[in-house]
């Protein structure tokens, strides 16, 4: 079983909301001071989905990350979790893409990687929340896709995917090769082991430039965008919370109930 997992390096979504800043002039988010980037959590869970299959029946996992000035300690995390290979698409030309140009470059890299049975992606990246790259790669490569997986089992050239729906899940069977996007219901991604971290340190990633995957710089990153970002802004919060005080938490609780009754909230 050959598996490829697309992993994006993003600003840590767990960084405190107060540290979040937008450069309105440049329509960009400023990286928070002192908070290192991470692999987008849904992508880590996509790695986890692949590792569970590898644990059960063997196989190889190639992590694929695109960006520029990628931090090796960050992008090697899938290796330290148990992935076998790491391919980086690293160049300034890959930056600031949209769903379209990102999926295009990743799909071309996947063609170059060659053999695969399953391509995994996170359901959406924790930065732009666009939720399109997985489906886009599948469309470009002509593959069937199943989105929002919480469990993936493989047997007889097919994958059985539990796909999250609002009140439960549906079990979808898909022929392989296929693209599967993973949702958080899959469960937490494993922590790297010390052995895994040591192995990842020694492993040199394969680095490809646009020419290596045969793409023209005009079709990737910011140049290849189809969606124009007109404006990026932080919504203004009104923020006038009436704090109900009391000599004890119990007394404050009683005061809260009385206040809410008075203003007819219940």
């Amino acid at each position, binding site marked *: 079983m050959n598996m490829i997992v697309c992993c994006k390096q993003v600003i840590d979504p767990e960084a405190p*909301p107060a540290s979040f800043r937008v450069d309105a002039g440049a329509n960009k988010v400023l990286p928070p001071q002192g908070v290192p980037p991470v692999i987008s959590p849904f992508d880590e869970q996509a790695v986890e989905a692949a590792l569970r299959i590898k644990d059960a029946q063997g196989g190889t996992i190639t992590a694929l990350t695109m960006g520029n000035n990628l931090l090796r300690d960050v992008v090697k995390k899938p290796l330290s979790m148990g992935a076998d290979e790491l391919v980086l698409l690293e160049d300034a030309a890959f930056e600031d893409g949209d769903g379209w140009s990102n999926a295009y470059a990743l799909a071309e890299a996947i063609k170059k990687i060659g053999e695969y049975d399953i391509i995994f992606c996170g359901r*959406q990246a924790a930065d732009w*929340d666009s939720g399109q790259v997985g489906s886009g790669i599948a469309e470009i490569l002509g593959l*069937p896709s199943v989105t929002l997986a919480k469990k993936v089992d493989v047997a007889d050239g097919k994958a059985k995917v539990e796909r999250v*729906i609002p009140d439960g899940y549906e079990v979808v069977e*898909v022929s392989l090769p296929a693209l599967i996007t993973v949702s958080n219901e899959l469960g937490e991604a494993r922590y790297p082991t010390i052995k895994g971290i040591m192995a990842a340190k020694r492993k040199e990633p394969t680095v490809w430039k646009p020419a290596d995957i045969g793409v023209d710089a005009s079709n990737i990153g910011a140049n290849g965008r*189809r969606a124009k970002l007109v404006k990026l802004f932080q919504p203004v919060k009104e923020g006038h919370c009436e704090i109900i005080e009391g000599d004890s938490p119990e007394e404050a*609780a009683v005061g809260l109930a009385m206040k809410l009754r008075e203003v007819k909230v219940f």
Partner: protein
Amino acid sequence: MSDNKGVMIVGEVVEGKLSPIAAELLGCGRKLADDLGQELSAVIIGSGVSGLAEQAISQGADKVYVVDDALLKDYQTDSYLSVMDKVVKEAMPQIVLMGQTSMGRDLAPRLAFRLETSAALDCIALEIDPDSKRLLQTKPVYGGNAQAIYSSDIDPQIATVRPKVMSPLAPDSAKKGEVITIDAGLDASAIRTSVLETVLEEVVGIKLEDAPVVVSGGRGMGGPEGFEQLAELAKMLKGAVGCTRPVCDSGWMPDTQQVGLTGKIVTPDFYIAVALSGSSQHMAGCSSSKTIVAINKDPEANIFKEAQYGVVGDWKKVIPAFTEKVKELLG
């Protein structure tokens, strides 16, 4: 820019009925179509769905495309994609809208790639730029920490719309419209997925997304036990219990009760946020609640920036006293 004209919405069918998001899309689509001076169409896809066309017309559509085929009974990416590709190429709309539902978030991006255009998912505002006449698509990004407005010069512009954000129109049964039947033209062998079974979690009491009152707990609840107390309060207020994503990740509550960006979007009259910090990812699922009340021991927690009323204190002390007083006041 092309000759494409008109606004098209995809009217999702759930259990043989047009889903509430269809009416919301028709309401929103009507306004956009009127602003452009163009017509609004609806696409209804499924098996045994032709009877729903009149309803879509009464809710705002000028034209309804019906694609009725036994192979379309369940949503499948391959079959619905093939149908939408065909309908869009025939109708040539300028704008295509879907709900941000399990179907829409799967279908919209794939359709955009097939049509070589772009899509914006989970939009919370849509408007026509008065100068360029292009659709401006506003959506939360960075887990709700920021919002982005997207546009595109390529037709059709595709967007999915977050449920419960747009208002439906009052149905007008006198409204006339045209119904056009389109043959699905599907080849069963080209559908590469099949739904083997659907497993629904049993919901005890009122459904989260329908509840007028939601009591949600976060990581600060410390374990599954506290949720029984929240359930007691919720029951008293005829509401439902929700939670944040870490609570589901820890297995304290079923995934179906998650409120937030990747869970349910709720818009109750009364949202009680207990021992949760109010991350932007969580608030994405509840910020449209009419009244938000926060109970948290950390006075600096972000939830106090979102709530109208709050108590700073340990939930273990606040909730029992609050529940008792609510019970007394409800008499």
